[in-house]
């Protein structure tokens, strides 16, 4: 890899590789056992590109779900993507020709790699984000097709490798906790979701959790804006310029 931006983006995407390839293989096998071959695996991973939804989707397809049921299920399972997009509006604002793909490819994992807004020095940030997103989708699509073609699990035990996705989020959480001085948003996310998990159970806690997080952070807005203006320039230099231009634009 001669181009530094390609190398940097590849390195950034490596933590997602193992998880996506293995979970992709799992999806490919599931789909094949349901009677749909590699072309379907490719199509679903290329066009839907939402991991948990594709697993649910296999059930919808084989279970004879209606269009309405499929649409509503997708809406419920993927509602969190609204959340990701809302929080990336400022960062993807000036992404130009890369913007549509960046938005399309915003999975949980890609989001967690790119949401801190940091990009390496001296590379085109939008090209970098595009490449990270694209590499991740390549892993997912390759895994899906491979699983469909192999039809069986890999010759060695991969039990537990799905933890790499959990580890990715935990590492990202820890890193943000260290970097950001304001720990309220992170603690709000953790505590609200835990509370909703206990109250609503593991099947339906995510949407209440998102509403609760939004509600709490909205109520705390006054406090944090004040707080932020005090520490701005130290913790979020990368984000600030874009945000200022957005604020100005918002006031026009």
């Amino acid at each position, binding site marked *: 890899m001669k181009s530094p931006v390609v190398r940097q983006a590849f390195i950034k995407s490596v*933590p997602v590789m*193992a998880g996506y390839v293995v979970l992709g293989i799992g999806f490919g096998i599931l789909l094949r056992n349901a009677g*749909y071959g590699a072309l379907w695996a490719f199509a*679903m991973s290329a*066009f*839907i590109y939402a991991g948990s939804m*594709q697993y649910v*989707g296999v059930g919808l*397809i084989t279970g004879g779900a209606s*269009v309405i049921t*499929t*649409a509503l299920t*997708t809406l419920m399972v*993927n509602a969190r*993507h609204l*959340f990701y*997009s*809302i929080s990336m*509006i*400022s*960062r993807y604002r000036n992404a130009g020709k890369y*913007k549509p793909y960046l938005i*399309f490819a915003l999975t949980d994992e890609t989001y*967690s790699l790119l*949401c801190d807004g940091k990009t390496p020095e001296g590379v085109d940030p939008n090209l970098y984000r595009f490449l990270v997103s694209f590499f991740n989708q390549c892993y997912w699509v390759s895994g899906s097709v491979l699983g469909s073609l192999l039809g069986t699990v890999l010759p060695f035990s991969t*039990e*537990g490798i799905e*933890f*790499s*996705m*959990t*580890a990715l*989020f*935990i*590492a990202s*959480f*820890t890193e*943000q906790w*260290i970097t950001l001085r304001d720990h309220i*948003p*992170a603690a*709000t*996310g953790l505590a609200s*979701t*835990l509370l909703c998990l206990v109250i609503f159970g*593991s099947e339906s*806690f995510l949407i209440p*959790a998102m509403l609760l997080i939004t509600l709490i*952070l*909205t109520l705390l*807005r006054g406090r*944090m804006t004040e707080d*932020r203006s005090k520490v701005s320039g130290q913790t*979020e230099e990368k984000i600030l310029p874009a*945000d200022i231009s*957005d*604020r100005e*634009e*918002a006031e*026009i």
Partner: protein
Amino acid sequence: MRTAVLVAVMALVTMLLRFLPFIVFRKKVPGYVVYLGEVLPPAIIGMLVIYCLKDVDLLSGSHGIPEMIAAACVVALQAWKRNSLLSILAGTAVYMLLVQAAF
């Protein structure tokens, strides 16, 4: 054919969810949304951590011990070395070892 329709519906609804905020706020971004863009990322990552661990059963099976040990390794390594790749690989290796060999 029916399968193709369902796949298309899943793809379109997912795309709609991802593109909707960008379409709604394509011209002006209200200050409130800018604020959400600042505070949501750490909150969402916190949410995803819990989301990944939602099926861990503390009362039976391995009582979530492998998850707790592996998660602690990731946090400790990340705090110490600040290298995500290292933390993730080591944490996953510890977890795989625990579930395959110890529990």
